[in-house]
Each structure stands twice: as C-alpha cells, then as structure tokens.
C-alpha cells in the first residue's frame, strides 16, 4: 500500500474547518494527443497546453451549452449561496478543501458565467465575485471538476435542486474541447467504440473467460450453468459492466445472474458487441459519445433478435440505462412491451423470488452479517421497481431474502443521503488515489460504526465502480478487501439449483 494520509473516522460525523488549497495539487493526467484525437477532441501543439484561441472557444462552447441545457442555464442563475450543500460532499468532508464544497465547485464556472453572460458581472464584477477567464481559472477547473464524482448528494439537499453533476459534466466537456481532456476517461471510451467494452477485451478472450466460468461453476455445484455469448434468438440480452468478467467480487455477481436465469428457465445471452454496461460518456458530459455507446446496445439487441434487455449491477450504467437509454437509443418498439425497457437484474431476481421460482437456502450466507451500500447513481438518479424509492427497498428485500443477518448503516448515510464510494464519475484511476482515499472517509466511517456496533462483517453493493473502489480503499481503513461483496454473489451463495450437490464441504471451509 502506497503511503497516504488517511482521514480519521469517528463515532459521529465531524464537519472539518476549511483548509484552502488542501487538494489543489490533485490533478489527474491530461489526455495526450492520441486519446484526444481518438475522441474527436482537439489537441494542443504541446501536451498540457491549451489550444490556440482557447479562451474564445471556451466562451463560445459555454454559450452553446447554456442554450442546450436548461439545467445549466437555470443552475448558473438561481444559487443564493445559502450554504446548505457546503458540508454534504464526501470530498469536502474528506479533504476540507473549500473548493470541494459543491457551491464553490459550481462557482468555478459560475464566476466566469457572471463575468461574460450577466449584467452584474459585466459591469460590477467585484461585487458579485465575477472573474476573467484566465489559464489559472482553467487549471483550477480541471483540478476541481475532477474532484467531483457527479454523485448528486448536494442536489438532494439544495433547496432548488441545483445539481453540481450537471455543472461538472458541462465543464469537463468544455475543457476537453480546448485540449484538457482527462486521460482516464478518454482512454477508455474509444475502446468501447472499437472493441465493445471498457477493458478492450476482444471477443475470443470473452469466449474464453465465459467458458472458464462455466467449468468453474460446474466444478463447484455439479450443474451446467450456461454463460451464452452472441446467441441469436435468446429472449434476454444481458448488458453488464465488463468488470463482471474478471474482477472480484464482481464476477461472483455475474455467476449469480447466470444461476437466476438458469433457475427461472429463460434463455439469455451476452453480446460481444455490447459487452459493457458502463457509459463514460456520462462522466465527461458528452451527449454524442453517450449516445454512440448506447446505440451499440440497440444494434446488438436488433442483431440478436432479443425481446428484453436486462442490466447487471452497475451504478452509473443503470443511471444511463434507466434515464437515457430510451432518449439516446430508443424507441424500443421492437422489444416485448410487457417488461420494463430496460430492466434491472434486481427487478428480475426480485420478481423470481416473489413468484417462488428460486430455491433459496439462506443459511448458506450465515457466515456473514450484511449491510448495504446505496450506490449514488442508483439512489439519486434511478429506480429499481415500481414505486418511488424502490431503488432502496428492492436490493434490501433481495438481500434479506437470501441472508439471515442484515443491518443498515446510519440513516443519514443511506438511501438518497448515501455517500459516494469516492471513486465514481470517472475518478477510478490510480493518479487520483489520494482523492479516492479521502473521499471514501464518510462511507468508511458509517461502515466501521455498523461493524463495531452491530457485528456487520460484509458490505454488499450493486455497482462495479463501488466494488472496485472499496476493494482498493478498505485495507487503508483497517478492513479487508473481501469485505465488499456483490448482491448477486449473495444470491449465488443461497440459491440451490436443481441437481446441485457436492458443495457442502467447500461451504463449511468458507465459513471457517
């Protein structure tokens, strides 16, 4: 473990006093020419510089954004600086840097908006805190708009619903257009376009992985559970984050989906073309990229002739799928209208549980006491089920249907007040490790408290980024990386398939 100063955790949350410039040094790698041009973004003559005429370009882009996004236009105008959001961001709580207060983050763009687009800012800049657009301001934006995970916790508490994520997305897109794209996201998106997933895992490798999984599961439970790829005529297309194909604990979740499908007897398939649920187009605020990534799923669904689309456990992917797939890649008139389009895997599993299609032995999870981490994009930007707030109840109902021991974390850190894992929104990269560790503080704090007060042993999540982030940060906070589990991993443990056997011995090993 590299050496970082880890924030303390407490029995009760403490809001830090501000420390100006505490995270000014946090600057993710800027995308070089190759990645910028792969994305269709301009690249400056020298790396790290801005393109010629950047200032005019930026203001031009801003005018365009303001005329295309009502959210941005309204949010720039209506903030009253009441301070309701100032202590709500996990990055502020973890770093104490005042520019990580949501309103201050918005102000990086708002003060430029005021200077060039409002009467008061044009004629009385000092009065309203308007500033000229300088390279200094751009650098500040690049740093702090990459210290926002677009988790929307601030928007929940804002009296006007001002969503910093909207501002961050707009700013990132404009920065990319003047040569300051972020390397991590710009490196990943072209892989999705070209190969089909964020990892750049080509079809043969995917075939290999899935065959391996089939063997592994058969060795384990003596039932042949299939992991089909590109099977035309299957009923369901499963779109899942590519981390589910290789990372822990993600892969155990994938095994869970497969077992549920197997038990319910539906036919399903993965697609090599749409072998990725993630859509980083959201993170970088780029409608076109987000649309192109979404359209792969439309193409795959048409080619394979499926009737339904189901998404695996992934937070922002579900946000895009739930809210935007219809907008970006619809209309979906060629799919079966009797099911939600798209559907979440938890909706499918919950329904199967309700209809008693799954044979569950809850005691298989008795070696654990679970808690549940509401992922930000699921909690505040989507729904999983029929009623408002079912994104909170559905996962908990499924967990409690397959586990005997469960305890929630503190109420002001769950449901729509949940804390981001610290790695969302395109920040899950090693060059932002310090930020990720500090941003995880509020979640780690509530987890630690529920561990010490209620004997919780594991935290379940339904987001690939959360799972990866926690795997990395848990050890820094004195816990172990295997304390984060997939929700469908719990389902997988408890489900007893027809003809299953021979795993008793192994289970008792696990328990020990």
């Amino acid at each position, binding site marked *: 473990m590299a050496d970082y100063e880890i924030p303390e955790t407490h029995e009760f949350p403490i809001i830090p006093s501000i420390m100006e410039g505490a995270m000014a040094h946090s600057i993710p790698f800027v995308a070089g020419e190759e990645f910028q041009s792969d994305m269709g973004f301009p690249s400056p003559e020298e790396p790290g510089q801005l393109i010629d005429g950047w200032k005019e370009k930026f203001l031009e882009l801003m005018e365009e954004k303001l005329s295309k996004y009502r959210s941005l*236009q*309204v949010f720039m105008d209506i903030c009253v*600086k009441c301070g309701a959001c100032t202590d709500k961001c996990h990055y502020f709580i973890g770093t104490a840097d005042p520019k990580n207060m949501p309103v201050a983050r918005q102000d990086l763009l708002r003060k430029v908006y005021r200077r060039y687009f409002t009467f008061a800012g044009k004629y009385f800049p000092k009065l309203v805190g308007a500033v000229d657009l300088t390279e200094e301001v751009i650098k500040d934006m690049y740093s702090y708009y990459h210290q926002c995970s677009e988790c929307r916790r601030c928007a929940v508490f804002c009296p006007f619903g001002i*969503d910093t994520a909207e501002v961050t997305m707009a700013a990132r897109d404009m920065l990319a257009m003047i040569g300051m794209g972020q390397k991590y996201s710009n490196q990943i998106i072209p892989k999705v376009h070209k190969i089909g997933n964020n990892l750049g895992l080509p079809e043969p490798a995917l075939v290999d992985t899935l065959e391996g999984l089939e063997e592994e599961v058969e060795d384990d439970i003596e039932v042949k559970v299939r992991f089909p790829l590109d099977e035309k005529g299957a009923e369901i297309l499963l779109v899942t984050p590519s981390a589910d194909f290789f990372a822990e604990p993600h892969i155990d979740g994938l095994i869970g989906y497969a077992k549920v499908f197997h038990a319910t007897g539906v036919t399903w398939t993965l697609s090599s073309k749409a072998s990725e649920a993630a859509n980083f187009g959201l993170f970088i605020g780029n409608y076109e990229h987000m649309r192109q990534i979404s359209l792969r799923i439309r193409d795959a669904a048409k080619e394979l002739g499926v009737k339904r689309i189901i998404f695996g456990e992934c937070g922002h992917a579900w946000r895009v799928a739930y809210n935007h797939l219809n907008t970006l890649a619809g209309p979906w008139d060629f799919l079966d209208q009797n099911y939600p389009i798209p559907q979440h895997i938890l909706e499918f599993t919950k329904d199967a549980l309700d209809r008693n299609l799954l044979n569950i032995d809850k005691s298989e999870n008795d070696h654990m006491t679970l808690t549940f981490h509401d992922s930000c994009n699921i909690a505040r930007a989507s729904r999983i089920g029929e009623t408002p707030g079912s*994104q909170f109840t559905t996962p908990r109902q499924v967990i409690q249907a397959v586990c005997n021991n469960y305890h929630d974390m503190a109420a002001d850190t769950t449901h729509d007040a949940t804390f981001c894992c610290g790695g969302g929104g395109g920040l899950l990269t090693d060059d932002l490790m310090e930020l990720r560790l500090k941003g995880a503080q509020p979640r780690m704090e509530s987890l630690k408290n529920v561990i010490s007060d209620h004997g919780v042993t594991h935290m379940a999540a339904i987001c690939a980024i959360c799972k990866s982030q926690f795997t990395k940060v848990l050890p820094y906070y004195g816990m172990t990386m295997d304390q984060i589990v997939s929700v469908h991993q719990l389902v997988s443990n408890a489900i007893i398939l027809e003809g299953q056997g021979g795993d008793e011995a192994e289970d008792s090993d696990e328990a020990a």
Partner: protein
Amino acid sequence: MSALSILYVILFYVAMITLVAGITNKLLQYKRVPAPLKIAVTPAPLTKKGVVYRFFTEVVLFNSLFRATKWTWIFSFMFHASLLLAFFRHLRYVISPDSFIWPLVNNMIVQSFGHYAGFAMVVGLLGLLARRFFVDRVRYISSISDYLMLLLILGIAITGLGIAYVAHTDIVQLKAFIMGLFLFDWQNLPSDPVLLAHLTMVLFLAMIFPISKLLHAPGLFMSPTRYQIDNPREKRHLSPWGAEIEAKDGRNA
C-alpha cells in the same frame, strides 16, 4: 405636484416594468432552452400530481433545506414567511375598499399578523447574515453582493417597522399616490424621509430582481431535477436538438 412626487412616479413605473419584463424575459429564456435528458433527482414523483406535491413541500415547507441544515432553515423560513405576511398586509395600500378582495385583506388577522411579521423578518435576516460571518464555509462562498442583498432587505424591514411604530406617515396620502399610479391620475407622495428610504430600497430591490440571485424564486420552478416526472422508461423524452442528431444518422430508426 412636487418634483419629488414626479421622480417617484417615474421610479415606480421604471421599477415595475423592469421587474415584470425582466422576470418574463428570464422565464422565457429558461423555457426556450431544452432539457435534453431526464435528470430528476430520485426518489421522484411518477405523476404530475406528484410533482405538484413535491413543489408544495419545497416552496411552502423548504423540505430539502430542512434536511440540510436546521439553523438556516429556521432563519430562512422565518424570513420568507414574514415576507409573505408583510406582503398581504401591504395589499391594503394598493386595493380599493370597493374591491371584492378588500375584506380578505382589511381584517384583524391579516393586519395584525402582518404588523408583527416585521420583527420576525428582522430576526430571520440577522440570523442569515450571522451565518455569512460566523460559519467559515458560508463566509468562503459569500460575495459582497450576498451581504449587501441581506442588508438591503434588512433596511427595508427596519424602515418599514419605523413607519409602523415610530415615524408614522400620512397613510391616506400614500394610498392616494399608489392608487394614482394605477389610474394614471398622479398624486403627491408624502415626503417623510423614512417612507422615502423604505420605498427607494423596495424599488431598487424590484429593479435588481431579474439580474440577481433573487431569480431563485421563479427559477425554482424551472429546475429540471425537481419538476421532471420519473417516467423515462414509459415515455420517451427527446429534445429538439437530440431529434436533429437522430435525423442526421438515422441510427434510431
């Protein structure tokens, strides 16, 4: 008519036109700009009725602010509720006794509540101001204009209380002046300094309304995270410019 009265007649018209035209212009601008994507902050209502209820809890009870910070909520709620009561009380000066709403305005309840609301307003404003000075986070995000705005409204409240309790003005003449503005039959304005200070600050506030953060009042209703219905899977949402992109490559066909 005195020169002073002529000046205030002009100021009144300019301020009212600025206020109405400015806000209309801003709202039209918000309406013109499309919301390309569904971004309701969830849990969000599934129906229009639900959205109305959501706005009720936000506009009347300041629900989100209550969840965020109790102190700011107390002071803010005190201020806004007092503002509303004071507004109702002031209707007496712009409504003719012949009007059918006169009994609704000129009664014990509205008049006495409105009378004391001034004090609550001052307390609320002082609380909000104190936060800007004493909470380091709020101090950091405050511009000069944020302080001045509170001081301006504080000035209005204090001069208002001054007229009500200390330096009474010729209220009959004031009403004649106001009614004259509506009927284009201009009358003299009483020239007490406290009244003039009160009116000047009110007119200034009206004029800067459309170019300041006071836009939060109408703007709240145009906030997509709050007004959008949570039905993206059931109903396809597409902006005009989104549709243009689609038409170009035909990939959604």
